[in-house]
């Protein structure tokens, strides 16, 4: 087991991502942050407050659970459905920024795009991921990345966040993810 990102690395990465979001979108006027539960949602909240402290205004922030749109549901016992909370201003015509902790095969993001499609039509969809560990199975790429972590498929990446796990840390371990 090796530590890929320390707590401090995570904070710096999120701060940098927040700035990049503002730079690419020329401010926060039209953006909506949607975190993918569980950890993506917490990351979205953090990015939202960082942006709020930079810009001085609140960014509509919510969660988007993609369980019902997964393409691999039949391969394991039924998963619990997490909350989906779309901000009241909606996503129509907005620049939606999906936030997730780890970008891996890309299937989660594919499901997220389908879920968004059922809700409305954003002007654009962008993706912020804390970690990109490679091994894409679909043509998906992140717009904002905390850290590129080359891994082998036999390894797994664990993201710990203080909101749930008590501390911030990203580690790489031997043994494939389930």
């Amino acid at each position, binding site marked *: 087991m090796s530590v890929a990102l320390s707590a401090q690395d995570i904070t710096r990465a999120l701060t940098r991502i927040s700035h990049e979001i503002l730079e690419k979108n020329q401010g926060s006027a039209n953006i909506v942050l949607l975190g993918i539960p569980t950890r993506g949602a917490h990351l979205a909240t953090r990015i939202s407050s960082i942006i709020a402290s930079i810009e001085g205004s609140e960014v509509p922030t919510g969660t988007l659970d993609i369980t*019902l749109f997964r393409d691999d*549901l039949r391969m*394991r*016992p039924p998963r*619990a*459905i997490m909350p*989906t909370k779309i901000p009241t201003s909606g996503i129509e015509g907005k620049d939606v920024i999906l936030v997730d902790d780890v970008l891996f095969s890309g299937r989660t993001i594919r499901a997220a795009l389908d879920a968004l499609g*059922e809700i*409305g039509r954003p002007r654009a969809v962008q993706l912020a991921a804390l970690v990109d560990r490679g091994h894409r199975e679909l043509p998906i790429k992140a717009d904002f990345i905390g850290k590129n972590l080359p891994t082998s498929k036999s390894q797994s990446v664990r993201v710990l966040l203080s909101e749930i796990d008590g501390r911030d840390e990203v580690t790489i371990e031997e043994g494939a993810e389930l």
Partner: protein
Amino acid sequence: MRHLLSIADLNKSEAISILDTATELARVSDGAVKKLPTLRGRTIVNLFAEDSTRTRISFEAAAKRLSADVINFSAKGSSVSKGESLKDTAMTLQAMGADAVVIRHSASGAAQRLADSQWMSGSVINAGDGTHEHPSQALLDAFTIRKHLGMGASDLAGLNVAIVGDILHSRVARSNVLLLALLGAKVTLVAPPTLLPVGIQNWPATVSYDFDSVIPHVDVVMMLRVQQERMSDLFFPNAREYSRYFGLNGERMASMKSGAIVMHPGPMNRGLEISAEVADSARSVITEQVTNGVSVRMAILYVLLAGGALEVGRD
């Protein structure tokens, strides 16, 4: 979990997870998302050997919102009404590739017979078997109660529920008694002695013949339909006596606790067990029960069918 035949098959955490899943699915349906791809490619058959419009439509809507294909096999005009046996019907469904069968039948135990038989391999969901159980009704009732009175708790601990009417012949009562007790509520059954089964003393509920003494203490009054035929079968003298002692009218409603709600699984006999005034009052959540029914049935279908072969559960 492969089948949903009886509330007795669920433990507390399974029941709560169905309610929680329904909560999320309700949000989805309330919002702009009307259709989910989750059960795309699955075939769900509604095998309704007993007439029922609302339950069948509810299951059909639930299945379609999850993008499943729905086939309806209903009593009238089907081979079931022409005397085809349950076995032959089941084997036909199997040959058609049904992933799940939602069965409503006049014989108690029909759902279990279907599930235990070797006639088909899909999931069996009991939509009401004779006078035995109606699990999805109890789940939508619990969901409705939790929504109004749950105060954010995951279960129904501390709530008092009265179930009033023909307990003897009611599958809704049986399922509700089991589920409400499982979720920590206290249940009081109110009925004339003729409409209470022998052997009820072992049910997790108290029994009372006196509706008026029970009403002021409960948070939920759940009225059950009383069939007209019961009068000719000597269960009570006439409709007037029944309503006088066991009907929920405006006067009784006025003695209900503040915030207490009125429920009814439908269809109602307005004027017999429930007055029009009560049915249309602000305390009544009867139409909402119907809406909740779709979300709860979506949750049941999701929990039983969305997962795959690796699942462990009651077989």
